[in-house]
């Protein structure tokens, strides 16, 4: 089984639901976004339009971050999910330089959203999951998948623009969407075999 995601850009309305639900699920520090939405304005009056691109780790089949990691902290987990073993990471950041999708973050020091007021009770709980001096990234919410749930960004997408499933199964929803709607990946020229596909707007 090879887990992958399809994001329908026609359905996405850039509500940032994925970004916020990811932050809520993982309690990531300020400035860290495992899932984020890029926006760009295109064209001129009277026909301008907004373009959106939700991005996250592409969980590549031939992930350069895994090859570049000197300790094996970046590794393939079950179903091809690329994850980081935070107990092995030395914080050399080679993986960040290897990832063509810029979806890794280095947690250099503990920061909280309310500065001098200190951490909220929620931040106190979540900050224990993110040790300092190591790199962090999206892991397709492995803990939720283990419980039979969808990743937070998929479950909370109001427009149902995100679908997760088995890319190796030709009859899965993700495989059918990619085939029928001409799914494409970002930076195919990097040759990393990304497992996040997009459907054109």
């Amino acid at each position, binding site marked *: 089984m090879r887990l992958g995601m399809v994001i329908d850009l026609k359905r996405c309305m850039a509500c940032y639901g994925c970004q916020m639900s990811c932050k809520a699920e993982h309690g990531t520090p300020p400035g*860290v976004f495992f899932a984020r939405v890029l926006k760009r304005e295109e064209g001129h009056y009277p026909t301008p339009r907004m373009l959106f691109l939700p991005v996250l780790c592409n969980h590549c089949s031939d992930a350069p971050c895994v090859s570049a990691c000197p300790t094996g902290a970046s590794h393939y987990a079950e179903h091809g999910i690329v994850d980081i073993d935070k107990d092995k990471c030395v914080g050399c950041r080679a993986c960040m330089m290897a990832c063509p999708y810029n979806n890794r973050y280095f947690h*250099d020091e503990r920061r909280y959203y309310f500065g001098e007021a200190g951490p909220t009770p929620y931040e106190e709980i979540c900050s224990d999951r993110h040790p300092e001096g190591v790199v962090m990234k999206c892991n397709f919410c492995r803990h939720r998948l283990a419980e039979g749930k969808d990743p937070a960004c998929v479950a909370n997408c109001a427009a149902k623009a995100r679908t997760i499933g088995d890319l190796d199964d030709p009859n899965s929803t993700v495989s059918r969407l990619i085939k029928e709607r*001409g799914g494409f990946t970002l930076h195919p020229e990097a040759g990393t075999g990304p497992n996040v596909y997009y459907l*054109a707007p």
Partner: protein
Amino acid sequence: MNRYDQLIADLRSDYRPQREWGEGRGVLMVVGHFLVGIAGGTWLMASIYGVTAGLAVAYVLAALGALAHLAFLGRPERALGMMRHFRTSWISRGFVGLALFLVGGGIYLAILLVASGSATGLVARTAQAVAAVGTVVIIGYMGFCYTASKAIPFWHSPLHPALYIAYALRGGIAALLVIGAAAGAAASDGLLQLWIGVTVVVALFFALEIQGAWSGGNVAARWSVRDLLAGRLALLFYGGTLALGLIVPLALLAASTAASPAVMALIGLASAAGDFFMKLATVRAGVYRPLVIPARRQRA
């Protein structure tokens, strides 16, 4: 700008500069690469020219470079784990090479110093061979670390390893010039000519790399070149690399009829400083590959 505001500003920009290597504590990584590169070059040159003091200097530089690398890591206490993935990771290969160099070079130097310049026994030869393997690795691995960085198109060039090897050789010659000057010896014409030759090679490789990045199809690589030559890093490049690393040594060389020890030392130090600024500038010029938002319907 504080770290959070910087992160947000970077995430919003079309061409996001990499800041992990080369800024803040990341400068230690560049310092580490600089010292280890010079160490490899110095060991090689000192072995060729038979300068025992050069071997000792190379060893000290490598040890300092290793410390700089450790200080850069987020979790230096786990550094031994970096030996595990040498089959795929250039950083791991570099770590193994540096360890071989420090162990082999340390034993060889110790025997050499105890035996007052004669080290012909089996242990000495083995240690020398181990150090030689380490030398080859530490001279070569750095460029490959950058070439393997698919996120940064400016570094993702096949010329980068050749450039870093040339830097290491230039650094080694510069170190021998300084060591020779410290000993009060006049510079041999051969060493100065070698410095000129390697400098020409470095300049040629660098010009080719810049030309390749500028004329290639990648906008991020072009952005890096613009940053380097006419943007946020221009002062570092023109002042540090060109003026200090190239023009000053060449002017000293042209102005002095006889290469006095003081001139030799200045040439060596300026050359090494120029190499450091060149490495710092090219590392800081790294810009992440931009994520392009598809505007029209595309078919896979």
